[in-house]
């Protein structure tokens, strides 16, 4: 299957991640750091396969709970941690698809052949970049896309004019496009 490469490769970040993993293997409290690092990647992958947001959330939660439970058995010499997470995600999605074969929660795994590691990484990076937007742009993008709210609802909640909200949406997306372009350059 397709697996994602860690966003940053190279021995230094690899060594750092290795330390993170060993710390989490000794004390699960350190798992939070691995979660922070890999959340967007896992969510991006699951959301690619599963269209429904609630199911995406359930399965993403499943992946991380399984990863936490199996962490003591993770062996660094095997595969990179990100690839290991993707393997768990793949299995979780396949299981879900088998369980609910009659419900349409997404395409069967084998039907989706077009997904590439780069696509997952791009989407994950976009998700991470949203978190780095200026606060008001971030709120508008989050409410509009993640929560599916209308411009009117957002305007009311933020006590702004609809025009101002639309402008924040435009600016936010502009910023995201520019930041994505920078890295891809």
């Amino acid at each position: 299957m397709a697996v994602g490469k860690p966003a940053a490769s190279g021995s230094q970040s690899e060594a750092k991640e290795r330390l993170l993993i060993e710390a989490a293997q000794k004390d699960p409290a350190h798992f939070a750091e691995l979660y922070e690092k890999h959340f967007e990647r896992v969510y991006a992958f699951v959301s690619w396969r599963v269209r429904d947001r609630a199911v995406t959330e359930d399965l993403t939660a499943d992946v991380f709970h399984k990863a936490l439970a199996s962490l003591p058995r993770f062996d660094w010499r095997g595969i990179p941690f990100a690839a290991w997470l993707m393997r768990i995600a793949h299995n979780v999605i396949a299981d879900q698809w088998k369980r609910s074969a009659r419900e349409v929660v997404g395409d069967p795994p084998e039907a989706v052949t077009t997904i590439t590691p780069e696509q997952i990484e791009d989407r994950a990076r976009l998700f991470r970049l949203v978190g780095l937007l200026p606060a008001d742009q971030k709120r508008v993008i989050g409410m509009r896309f993640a929560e599916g709210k209308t411009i009117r609802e957002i305007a009311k909640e933020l006590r702004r004019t609809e025009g101002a909200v639309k402008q924040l949406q435009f600016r936010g997306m502009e910023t995201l496009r520019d930041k994505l372009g920078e890295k891809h350059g």
Partner: protein
Amino acid sequence: MAKRTLIEQLDDAVTGLLTSRKSKPRQLDPEVTSLLNLAADLRHLPRPAFRKKLKADLREPVSTAASPVSAQATATPYLTVQNAAQAIEFYKKAFGATEIMRLTEPGGRIGHAEIEIGGSRIMLADESPDYGSVAPPTLGGSPVKINLEVSDVDAVARQARAAGAKVVRPVEDQFYGHRSGQFADPFGYTWIISTEIESVSHEEMQRRFESLVSTPPKEVEKSATGKVNPIREGFHTITPYIAVREAHEVIDFIQKTFDAQGSILGVGSAGGIHAEYKIGDSMLMIGGSASWKGTPMPTALHVYVKDADATYKRALAAGATVIREPADMPYGDREAGVKDVAGNHWYIATQQVSASYIPAGFHAVTPYLHPKGAAKALDFMKRAFGAEETFRSESDNVIHHASLRLGSSMLSLGEAHAEFQPMPTMFYLYVEDTDALYKQAMAAGAKSLAAPADQPYGDRNAAVEDPFGNQWYIATHVRDPQ
């Protein structure tokens, strides 16, 4: 103005995408088209609230896991102790345990309790032999050790010792990358306290292990204080060894009569058991069995008890026969004599002339010999073992009663007479230097039964027989067995 148009164009397109409404095919500004490509991915943007909640859930897997039972179903030690309430207090002081719960029976015994040390749960309860739960003292020890991984082994070790734990093995750097030590708690359990100081691969560990086990062992293992006590813990210099075919019956008898505490520790090569039981402050070794082929050596023992009459009654109830009914003796003891099923003599006495029922200098149990030629026997024991005479009552060169001090123990003897005929006895002696005392005993006329040798149970010992038929095992405790 153009900007405003782009903003409206983008929002129209985004709304169309989010509501899956087929927007009219319209000429879009390229600027808007490039932004709209992002919108397809942004539709899947995770909710920040979900991201935050999942992170919190992962911190407490129990609250969200599908099966909270399986999340907790790890192996949990269950300790059976004598006095669980005290044990809980001890574990709090020694290891910083927190009490989670306890179930107290009407009588005050603890039927079940749970504590937590670090993140680990430990269950414990008071001893309850009826339910098959027996504590280490009943079994003579515990084969299971508990390993505590801590962040600072030296600090925890200090704390444990301050709380009353005894050093079994001092804290040291270990080949497997830990710094650790072993400590015995007052309830019979051994705790390994450990802190990782180095990450060692399994291969490296095996290599170091091999080089370690191929090194000749140190002659004598030293304890934390630097020296092993030559007298085994809980023992005095003299321990009588009763070797009879009715070993099990004798154990039953001393349990019923004297409330003896101890256990059967093993079965020897000749088919006899080896048991160690304590009466009051005194150890007794008992060996043999119905199938044992050795020569029985029943013994005469003088036992000081709180209430000679009550103990005498218990002895008879336990199957003993009367040698002499309780009576006040001219030397101030109230004393009775019984014989058990194996032929051992038990002189049951309570001292009545002072506050204590045991005379000063004596322990609860004192062997009593009735050799033919008590004066010679007494002389032999002085020469062979350095025994010191503390009392003698004689007339016409016949010793009626004499007492000898040998190390921390006393030994009594009197000339054989009437029903008190010689009963050659087997003794286990703990001394500073087995080899020296063995030579001394041989020079005094003893016959060698076994030359000094190290034994697997941590003693170096030898055996001799004196001219009166008594057998003496001369032992030095050199190593606390692990």
